[in-house]
């Protein structure tokens, strides 16, 4: 094929547009990262490599506070979402379809289809009513909102893993007089671990990214890193924001890479 001068897959100009697209996708991100290391505050001139903006970010008490809150929220919400999503995935895959299964799918996927603004407004109204009734004003609202939003993301890789898993091992366990529980505990669960980890990682990334829902649900003093950044972006932007964004970006890329490696692992 390559010896031929006429390539059937070539379409004039497509390669050029594609490369331009890749360049356009990465130029803004690279710009953001590069200028986080700029000694000068201005993009107009490069003052040499410097970590001063990272230092400024680390010394900013508010940034530390919102970062810790974001990480805590992501771990808790994704943790709960992963546990309940695993249970739901075990019930809805690899068994015969049962009545109500379509409804369960619809409920699980619903957060993916409704615009975040609408979900945010809905939760604002609902939680405001609960707040008035109970007087509770803690992090529970954010945990509930993030958990619900993470469930579909945690569910999908776990479901995918369950569907590709080899059933013969479980059959063998049953043949060897393992109880349902034993077969699950010693055969299914260990095989499912990569899927569960992938689901957790995805939920973690999604919770870290969620800005709109958090913006509507948070009470005063409950800013997360994204809502803090959203507020800061309306003011004068300093390279300190680039430094924070770069660290955030690195964390997301790391989590996504782990997710990909885990979900590629063969069952």
């Amino acid at each position, binding site marked *: 094929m390559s010896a031929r001068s006429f390539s059937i897959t070539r379409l004039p100009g497509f390669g050029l547009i594609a490369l331009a697209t890749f360049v356009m996708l990465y130029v*803004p991100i690279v*710009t953001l990262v590069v200028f986080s290391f700029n000694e000068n505050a201005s993009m107009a001139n490069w003052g040499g490599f410097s970590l001063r903006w990272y230092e400024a970010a680390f010394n900013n008490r508010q940034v530390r506070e919102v970062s810790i809150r974001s990480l805590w929220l992501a771990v808790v919400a994704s943790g709960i979402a992963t546990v309940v999503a695993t249970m739901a995935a075990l019930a809805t895959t690899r068994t015969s379809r049962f009545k109500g299964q379509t409804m369960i799918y619809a409920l699980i996927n619903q957060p993916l289809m409704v615009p975040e603004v609408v979900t945010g407004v809905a939760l604002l109204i609902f939680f405001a009513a609960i707040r008035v009734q109970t007087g509770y004003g803690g992090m529970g609202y954010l945990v509930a909102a993030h958990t619900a939003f993470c469930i579909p993301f945690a569910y999908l890789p776990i479901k995918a893993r369950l569907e590709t898993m080899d059933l013969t091992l479980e059959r063998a366990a049953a043949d060897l007089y393992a109880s349902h529980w034993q077969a699950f505990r010693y055969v299914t669960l260990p095989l499912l671990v990569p899927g569960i980890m992938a689901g957790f990682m995805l939920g973690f990334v999604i919770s870290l990214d969620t800005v709109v829902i958090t913006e509507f649900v948070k009470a005063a003093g409950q800013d997360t890193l994204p809502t803090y950044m959203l507020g800061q972006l309306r003011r004068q932007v300093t390279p300190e924001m680039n430094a924070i964004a770069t660290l955030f970006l690195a964390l997301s890329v790391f989590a996504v890479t782990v997710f990909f490696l885990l979900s590629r692992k063969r069952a």
Partner: protein
Amino acid sequence: MAMQDLSSTARPDGAAPDTPASAVEDSATAERHGWKWLLCAPALTILVLAASGPLLIVLVYSFLTPASFGGVIWEFSTEAWFRVFFSRDIFDPEDVRLNHAHLAIFWRSISLALQTTVICAILGFPTAWFIATRPQHTRAFWLFLITIPFWTNLLIRTFAIQEVIRNQGLINTTLIRLGVIDSPIQMMFTDFAILVGMAYVFLPLMVLPLYAAMDKLDIRLVEAGYDLYASRWQVLRRIILPLVKPGFIAGSILVFIPSIGAFVTPRVLGGGRNLMLGNLIELQFGQGRNWPLGAALAITMLVLVVGALIFYIRYVGREDDGGRRT
């Protein structure tokens, strides 16, 4: 939805959902259903309480009377829905006009969402084709380049675009240093900025389903076209485009829906004046202090999105039938 598409591209060999369920297990399933519901219960409870249920409350609130400092008075009223589309004169309540401010925002949202979809299609189609025609072993690399921005924070990507187009940003400082312009071109806080930002953040949603469709395309059909003396244009127009149409429609819907619902991008890049529907909704819960109106606008947005989804399901369903008939 986005995720499903991604997982289907990530695993082209994806297992059929209906694989196992052996006949042996069937006899036992009847009594195991209750057990399944029990396993699903925690997830469903959280989803109903913190996702689906509150949507119904939004509908209820859209028919209530606003309280003066936010919140509602429990009194039935259709005023909020009336005010979504119409406005009354302050001095003469009988003087009813179309609410031009709201209609302008609806129009801007729909128009920007459509333009975003077109831009993503123009850039996404060649990109997906480029990836699909790479040698097998390098495809994963190119796909990864598309998926990395897709999974990184939307706010950060919006910030990154801002770094490029703001007055002291990459484009303006570069052009000034090259002596092309004397003073920065104002790009921030315009519809153009929103458009660039949305096309940038939603582009992967177009490329991934298009790639999935192209990956399945039987290249021998293209070859047959050339053997029969078709030009490149004819092959593209008559063979490739019809075959990847489902991917095109899926990508368009996946881009259109978040564009209609966009909130972060217009807020950061559009500034205070260039509102989209999402920002108008937020305004009613902030300074506007009109929760019923905000609720009615949120339902309006939901109807637009569900409408796009139904259009997609119907249209793609019909396409499949057409395929079978010919």
